[in-house]
């Protein structure tokens, strides 16, 4: 049976679109995995590649970067579960989305009196689990503003929008973060 040129061009275009979408969300997906496998970079590397194998085997993967990111996080979540299931003996090292730690951190961040600089390691871990559960584009924004200390104007220039729009997005992201700290299962991290 002779295959037409279209038949070979379509898979190539699909592969290219997948690769482009992956470049956009790879950091976010990688950190999502890393903070959930006890920051073991070897395991995270392996799981990220497994995610790509799963993605390429799928018949109709989404190619829109945001949807692709959320979809890859879904794949990653299943692979992480399998990872811990296969390593029952090491499960004591598994970072747990303990609601109590998240709630304590949230109270601290919302309160007037407490100094956040006194936060425990568990609390910062809870923060990172919540941050990495955000969508890739949201993670980039939170990373830029809070972790790298960049100005709203800088980010607005990069994203070709206004500082006001960035501010509004951040407001929504903070509300989402508070929700995630209060209840990590909201991100499907049960």
């Amino acid at each position: 049976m002779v295959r037409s040129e279209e038949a070979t061009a379509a898979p190539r275009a699909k592969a290219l679109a997948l690769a482009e979408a992956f470049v956009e969300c790879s950091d976010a997906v990688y950190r999502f995995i890393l903070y959930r496998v006890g920051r073991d970079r070897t395991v995270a590397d392996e799981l990220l590649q497994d995610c790509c194998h799963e993605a390429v085997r799928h018949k109709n993967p989404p190619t829109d970067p945001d949807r692709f990111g959320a979809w890859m996080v879904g794949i990653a979540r299943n692979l992480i579960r399998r990872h811990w299931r296969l390593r029952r003996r090491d499960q004591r090292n598994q970072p747990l989305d303990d609601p109590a730690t998240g709630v304590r951190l949230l109270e601290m961040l919302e309160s007037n009196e407490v100094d956040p600089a006194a936060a425990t390691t568990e609390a910062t871990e809870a923060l990172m689990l919540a941050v990495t559960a955000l969508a890739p584009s949201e993670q980039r924004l939170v990373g830029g503003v809070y972790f790298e200390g960049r100005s709203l104007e800088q980010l607005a220039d990069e994203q070709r929008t206004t500082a006001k729009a960035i501010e509004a997005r951040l407001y929504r992201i903070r509300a989402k973060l508070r929700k995630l700290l209060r209840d990590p299962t909201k991100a499907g991290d049960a």
Partner: protein
Amino acid sequence: MNDNDRIDVRFDEHLRTLAARTPVEPGPDPRVMQGCLNILQRPTTPNWRTTVQTYRKPILWSSMGMAAMFALFATSLWPHANPTVHAALVVEKLAKQAAANPLMQLTVENLAMDEVQCTAHLQLGKGGIAGDVNVRVESPDDEMPGTIEVEASIGLGGNNNWILIRRLSVPDPKAQFFLNMFLPPGQETLLVLPADSDIGNEVGAEIEEALQELRSGELIEAFKQLLANHAEVGATATNQPDGTIRLTLPIQDEEAIEAVVNLFHKGEGEEHQDGETPPVAVEKKINKSSKTKSHAAQAHKAIEKHHAKHVEDGAKELIGATVNAVYDPATETVRMLEVLGLGSPNARISLVLSEGDVDANLLDSARVAKPGVRTLDLGAIESIIKSFEGMHDKK
């Protein structure tokens, strides 16, 4: 500023302080990243699961449903060739035959659709499905060109479910090496499916669903109307020595085919609007959130569109094909429906309807397989794995 805004301002300030003293792990190593990109940019190889999912329904429909539907089209044109036989009577007889759960002997020879070539001889009936299947899938992978070839016999009926692999070859030499460990070349291997496997019932449900369409009075009425609008298409009728009448119809009328395809689409849309159970894959996605429901609806639509596309493609392949139907006036039954030249000049699909059930000999693996055939009991293997996992858990 309301309370919520005040909380947000404090949260914002404190988050800045906390984030400033929290180191963030860097992204993936460039080499890992390159590895990932290599994986993603490699064209996909077809795997058997997606191939089966993609072609199961279209093949079932095109071989059973469409042969029957287009033969209805043909038989209903009878009055123009032989006025003594009334078209409506023939259509109704066929619907009656379908309602009586007949034994269907399906023969598919040299059917070629996209990368898949198929030859099959199957019996489908109340007792299950049994017969021989040869499938050849051409790999679209440029790096590893070749074909996946499967020669097998199947017997699915109640608790007696098995697949006899006569030959299985894949283009990937490593995969072939591992396959040879389980399925030695030149030797038949009988895969016995677990007793509680639901595959027989699933296939039964698919057949039942297809028959349900045939039994639908509305569909028959719609077809009659459609035939009235496309009457002159050049059918010929021949009286055969055994008293039967053979109707031959070359499919050339694109407009009529388009009308049939539209009828299919209309029928499918109505079904699901009535709240019929959506496909399992979509059903799993539905939960309480309305947003998810809308995603599920979108996914459902996409699947419907995908199936509709296959029906449409299949229908287009029919242009240039020939439909034959054999009607027995003595018993007032349609004996055989046949489509020739579907997709390739030497392709043939035929459906012979008769009373009775699937041949018990075909359902019996001991009669189909060579004596001393190598057997893999998938149920036993599964229980060994489970007990091993249980031991591991206790430790």
